């Protein structure tokens, strides 16, 4: 049922955007002259646009795919006419949209190809509209085209994401602001350079504009490598912890998954929630330096033993300190055993001083520690596991003194949605 409803939504989007795009394309054909001043210029720009479309950069971890077609399409719009720009963009989108799914052995990509074509068409129409309004020097027209195209393209992608995937539009805006500001500056510079060369009919110099594109592609590749490296560091550290304390294996995964959902429930941005998930994977990394004979001891710990266990929060932060990418989450890990009433450890912080991320990890960690995993090897040796209902009752009892009441409520909602408890 859900699949059918999803298909209906996507087909509805395709029909709406496709119709609007067809109308816009007719307007461009009707408005602009059909004659072309310089065919070599058009052919070179169309070829470069297609080549740029074929060499995208994908940052898989962020779900981002960037192409570099826009400078060439904007130059066509400013220096030739609207319909060549439209044709170049549609041809490039169609050719690559047909080739990539075949190369990747994907099926059912025709609907998405249609949506991409509609988005491309509408973006060119908006770009052409803004470019025409700006008027004057050809470089100003090219910049106006880029602005209209960029805004329309971004708005339509956000609309499609929100309608089909249920993605919150603010997440798109925030990630675009973080990643996009530099990219848009680069695109603006590229539009000016390509426009300047096209205006002066320097056709043979145009292929050299692939040098900065190559440089930016390489820069984005490095960024992708840095993301990979970041996640591999998390993986390697969690492997070390699992070697030292095998019961943590399932515990870390469960706490991380639920902590992210609680963060989203509390209204944290998707990027922040993902960081909470990553911090939750590493929240017990300091236990590497804690004796397993103490951690797994049946019965009560002596004062000295408890002091030894308490060290793990600050040692975790110490292990992460050398890595710049963990600077933000190191305090969350240091404070995940603080209590609202100021009797926690290591720094005895009170309510307002404790980061919300630490509060989230604290609640989810406590619940999982009380209930344990389904695997017998993951159960804590020092006490019998509680049922989910008993653990929730314990969280409620400590809400306000040990745990943040808002976080406990959000956590209960997540458990209810996951079907782990039957009443809220």
């Amino acid at each position: 049922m859900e699949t059918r409803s999803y298909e209906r939504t996507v087909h509805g989007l395709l029909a709406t955007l496709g119709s609007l795009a067809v109308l816009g394309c007719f307007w461009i054909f009707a408005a602009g002259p059909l004659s072309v001043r310089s065919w070599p210029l058009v052919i070179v720009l169309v070829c470069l646009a297609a080549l740029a479309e074929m060499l995208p950069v994908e940052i898989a971890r962020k779900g981002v795919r960037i192409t570099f077609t826009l400078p060439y399409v904007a130059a066509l719009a400013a220096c030739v006419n609207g319909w060549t720009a439209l044709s170049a963009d549609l041809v490039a989108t169609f050719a690559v949209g047909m080739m990539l799914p075949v190369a990747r052995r994907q099926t059912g990509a025709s609907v998405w190809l249609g949506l991409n074509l509609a988005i491309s068409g509408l973006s060119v129409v908006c770009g052409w509209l803004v470019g025409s309004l700006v008027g004057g020097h050809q470089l100003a027209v090219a910049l106006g085209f880029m602005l209209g195209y960029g805004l329309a393209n971004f708005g339509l992608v956000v609309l499609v994401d929100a309608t089909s995937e249920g993605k919150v539009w603010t997440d798109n805006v925030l990630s675009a602001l973080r990643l996009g500001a530099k990219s848009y500056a680069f695109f603006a510079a590229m539009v000016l350079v390509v426009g300047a060369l096209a205006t002066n009919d320097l056709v043979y110099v145009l292929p050299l504009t692939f040098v900065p594109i190559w440089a930016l592609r390489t820069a984005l590749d490095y960024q992708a490598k840095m993301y990979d490296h970041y996640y591999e560091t998390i993986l390697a550290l969690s492997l070390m912890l699992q070697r030292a304390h095998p019961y943590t294996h399932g515990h870390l995964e469960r706490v991380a998954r639920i902590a992210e959902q609680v963060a989203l429930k509390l209204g944290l941005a998707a990027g922040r929630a993902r960081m909470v998930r990553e911090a939750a994977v590493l929240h017990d990394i300091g236990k590497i330096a804690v004796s397993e004979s103490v951690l797994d001891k049946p019965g009560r710990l002596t004062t000295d033993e408890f002091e030894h266990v308490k060290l793990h929060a600050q040692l975790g932060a110490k292990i992460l300190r050398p890595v710049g990418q963990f600077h933000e989450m190191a305090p969350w890990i240091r404070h995940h055993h603080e209590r609202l009433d100021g009797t926690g450890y290591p720094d005895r912080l009170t309510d307002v001083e404790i980061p919300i991320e630490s509060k989230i990890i604290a609640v989810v960690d406590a619940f999982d520690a009380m209930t344990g995993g389904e695997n017998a090897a993951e159960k804590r040796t020092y006490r019998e596991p509680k049922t989910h209902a008993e653990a929730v009752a314990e969280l409620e009892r400590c809400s306000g003194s040990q745990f943040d009441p808002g976080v406990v409520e959000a956590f209960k909602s997540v458990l209810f949605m996951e079907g782990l408890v039957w009443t809220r």
Partner: protein
Amino acid sequence: MDPLTSFVLVAGLISTAGLVYYVRFRLPRRLEERFRDSLMAFSTAVELRIPSQRGLTSRVVALSLAIARKLDLPEARRRDLEAAAMLRDIGLCSIPYGMMNDREEDAWTEAERLTFDRHAEISGAMLEAVPSLRAIAPLVRWHHAPFRADDFNSSAPAGESLPIEARILKAVGEYVWFERTRGDFLAKEALRDGSGVAYDPRVVAVLMEVLRSPRVRPLRSLVHA
């Protein structure tokens, strides 16, 4: 060509040169720095679990790199050697805490000794699980393998089949441990005695040469502590 167009083209040329410089020189360095930071985090974790290891890694790294330079290893292999030196003991995390910290090595049982001897293999297996570190897994796995094959290490390569980086780590790692626990004189004696059997004689000769250098400071020994 009007002045605005000329300005745009000159600015584009300068920006491209800046971007190419950034991509060719700055970004690789930044990635390298992040890689080193991560290695530091791993070795901090090992040193926090086993305080007796504190300070050893940095000395092993420094001596190994000095030997690698004298042996003219290419830069890429020196980088791998550095990473392997920092990560060689991450498998120690799987050794019981009490055995490593609360009891002397002489008091270990045979089973405990065998558990300890597996740490290099475990370190290698852990690195295999991390794509960017997979290349150095063999260097770490064999960093305690003897130069001459023996019955206890029948599965390990020996002689020239052992990667040179593993042979360097074997000699340097054990020298630094003996230096810490027995003092410099006895550590050098152990190296000379094991040359050709446990250690690659060429590596031992270069290590002795490196240790004679006035730039190499002795490690603070536990013997007189």
